[in-house]
């Protein structure tokens, strides 16, 4: 039965045709897809490939429908710096001759080896929004104003997020925090928080074993309450992070779950970020 359903799904994917003039956008991750939809409106048809890295095998192998979506795309948006290497591979297999590729990492000047969770940097999405206005206008110059208005709307929605960041920064700048994975890293920087144990976080991100000294330092930062808050990736559960969460709770340190991709309950990137900032504020007030 599931097999038949999968076949039917595959058939409908191919049967679905785009309206004339509609721009096909493929976003490797759903948060980029959301911005593309917001800027392009009805002019674009957006397909987001990765919604949850833990429920989704696309990180490792690429299905035929994903490869087809990228081959058919007019615009491809992906994060880059090795976060989604399968996109690089698919881009090497041909595609539309006038395809535009937006690598967000290159757009904001992130280099390989940097923390790959660049969408948590509050400067990233507005930069992407501007880039999308340029790219979409090249395809449909008559609609330039429409795209600019949409980008303006998005930035207006970003304003309360930035205000919130500035407010929290004013109260909690310099507070030491730690995390099991570097997911929240850029936002923590924006908030002026001092992030401890970065090397440990990279090991967990890459599914390698953190070293003994790193693990000891991490546990020490929780037990001695040097770290005032522990962030973890709520889309990943593994024994090491469960253990650290337990130590944090025993030491009375607030434990805050953040997500790597945009959960479906949030309609937009800004809603998602606001919810996480709210959780940080609640945790910080509880810690004092």
């Amino acid at each position, binding site marked *: 039965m599931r*097999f038949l359903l*999968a*076949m039917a*799904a*595959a*058939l409908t*994917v*191919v049967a679905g045709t785009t309206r004339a003039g509609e721009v096909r956008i493929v976003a490797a991750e759903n948060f980029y897809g959301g911005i593309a939809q917001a800027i392009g409106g009805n002019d674009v048809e957006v397909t987001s490939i990765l919604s949850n890295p833990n429920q989704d*095998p696309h*990180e*490792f*192998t*690429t*299905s*035929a*429908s*994903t*490869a*087809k979506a990228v*081959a058919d795309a007019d615009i491809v948006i992906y994060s880059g*710096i*090795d*976060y*989604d*290497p*399968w996109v690089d*591979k*698919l881009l*090497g*297999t*041909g*595609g539309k001759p006038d395809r535009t590729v937006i690598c967000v990492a290159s757009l904001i000047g992130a280099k*390989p*080896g*940097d923390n*790959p969770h660049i969408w948590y940097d509050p400067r990233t999405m507005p930069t992407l929004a501007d880039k999308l206005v340029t790219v979409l206008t090249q395809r449909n110059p008559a609609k330039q104003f429409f795209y600019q208005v949409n980008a303006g709307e998005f930035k207006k929605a970003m304003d309360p997020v930035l205000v919130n960041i500035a407010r929290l920064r004013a109260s909690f700048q310099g507070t030491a925090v730690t995390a099991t994975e570097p997911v929240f890293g850029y936002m923590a920087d924006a908030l002026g928080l001092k992030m401890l144990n970065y090397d440990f976080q*990279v*090991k967990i*991100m*890459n*599914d*390698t*074993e953190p*070293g003994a000294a790193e693990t000891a330092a991490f546990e020490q930062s929780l037990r001695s309450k040097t770290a005032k808050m522990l962030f973890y990736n709520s889309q990943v559960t593994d024994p090491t992070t469960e253990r650290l969460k337990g130590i944090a709770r025993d030491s009375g340190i607030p434990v805050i779950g953040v997500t790597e991709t945009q959960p479906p309950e949030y309609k937009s990137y800004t809603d998602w970020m606001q919810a996480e900032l709210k959780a940080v504020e609640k945790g910080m007030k509880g810690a004092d």
Partner: protein
Amino acid sequence: MINLLLTYLSYDFVREALAAGTLAAILGAIVGYFVVVRNVVFAAHALSHIGYTGAAAATLFGLNPLLGMLFFTVGAGATMGVAGDRLQRSDMAIGMVLSVSLGLGTLFLWLHQGFAGNAMAILFGNIFGVSTEQLAEMLVLSLLSMAGLALFSRKLLFASIQPRLAEARGLSLTGLSLAFMVVLAISVTLASQIVGVLLVFTLVIAPAGIALRLCGSFWRGILLSVSLGVTAVWAGILLACVTDFPVTFWITVIFFVTYGSVEGWCRWRG
């Protein structure tokens, strides 16, 4: 469904997957024949996993993953070849080499500061992401390996089946074993580009194993092995297009069912 297949066949990524899959299947089927005859199945398995260490090293030093993998697999293959038959068939010695290599791979990933998506990707392969340049690399490497194998295949077969007699006739067993292990290392590295390190076995062992069960003669066995390999890869890719399931799933299932039926049939016939 036919329409869907035709739609897919018009895409470059499907055609490049078919071409790359065919290359890997042909080379795997031929080399695999000698692997089964020489009884070095575990060595083949170990070499493919050592490729993962190469991919991890390439990630750390920012090199081309294929080069990194070749460096490690050819190095390990040559070592096994020089160490001779006793090591090649010693599960213990190979197991030790395999585990230290994987340990080294863990260290490379540990030292890496960025995101190690590429090294993980090599475990499962990415047949729909084969670029034209990658295809060219594969073509050159598989032609070289097959040419090499063609040069010494008769001697190798002789030495594999009757090593003592071959040695008495003045053949260098170590030389042959070294040459073969290097070719094997290149083949498993190519095959892992397609089906991934974890599933290299399907392309290198399965077709040859089934062919040897059915045919006694060398040429017919090789021919059957190659046709089985190529058919399974094509069927796997096309089924993956129709169902959207992973290609590797289909290839492994096709081989398992074929192997099961052949084994059953042979036993039933007695």
